[in-house]
């Protein structure tokens, strides 16, 4: 995967959490995701299509997601609550939208988000696209942004 696709997600996740939640996010070293890596409890997933294609996953341990959603919605919600999934889905929507806006000269469409809630689940993207996990740390706890995208073969050259 083109590494230049990672920086937009780093900037976007920091911007979204700082602006909507007043929650600073520290970014760790992005790394390749491997099969068998530890699972997630809450995952918000969005698809990208067009000049860039693939998926983006915002994944949390339950405790972190619960704290984040409480700040975002102003309400304490259980992970099983429909509104909990709505809130996490909106976060991945904003993170992905903010990142794709930085893909200079690319025409990219994002899907409506899906949310998976379930202890220690795995999310598998396309087999032919590597996934990069961006570790994030905040006062609400740690979480990850997993980016598994590539340039569409018919699209113009690299992102900036």
């Amino acid at each position: 995967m083109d590494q230049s696709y990672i920086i937009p997600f780093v900037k976007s996740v920091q911007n979204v959490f700082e602006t909507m939640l007043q929650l600073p996010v520290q970014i760790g070293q992005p790394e390749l995701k491997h099969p068998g890596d530890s699972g997630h409890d809450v995952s918000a997933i969005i698809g990208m299509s067009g000049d860039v294609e693939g998926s983006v996953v915002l994944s949390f341990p339950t405790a972190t997601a619960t704290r984040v959603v409480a700040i975002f919605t102003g309400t304490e919600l259980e992970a099983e609550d429909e509104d909990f999934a709505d809130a996490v889905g909106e976060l991945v929507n904003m993170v992905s939208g903010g990142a794709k806006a930085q893909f200079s000269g690319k025409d990219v469409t994002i899907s409506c988000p899906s949310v998976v809630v379930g202890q220690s689940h795995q999310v598998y993207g396309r087999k032919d696209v590597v996934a990069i996990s961006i570790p994030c740390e905040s006062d609400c706890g740690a979480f990850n942004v997993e980016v598994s995208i590539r340039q569409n073969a018919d699209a113009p050259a690299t992102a900036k």
Partner: protein
Amino acid sequence: MKVMLVDDSKTMRNIQKGILTQLGYTDLEEACDGLDALSKVGAFQPELLLVDWNMPNMDGLTFVKKFREQGNKAPVIMVTTEAEKSRVVEAIKAGVNNYVVKPFTPDLLGERIKETLSRIAA
């Protein structure tokens, strides 16, 4: 003033409701997508609309085009993650009056609402 909030995210509609209420706008109607909004505008007669772009069933851009085709003049503010200039231009051409990119601060949304209404009043 009657304000309609069109967004598939209840969380986002609630955030917008909170900001609008702070600004003194309490006559609010909600719609979860463009189709839902089209079915409600006739009865509610909004005087301002905040519309998301990416929604299931009918996206915000299609909604705005249909809303304008029906002869509705009420100002529309697009509130969306779609931040590319080409998207903004597309939205303005479709009849959007102002544009707010998510994520936004309450102050920014409030400013854009006031700016939009003062432009219309001028």
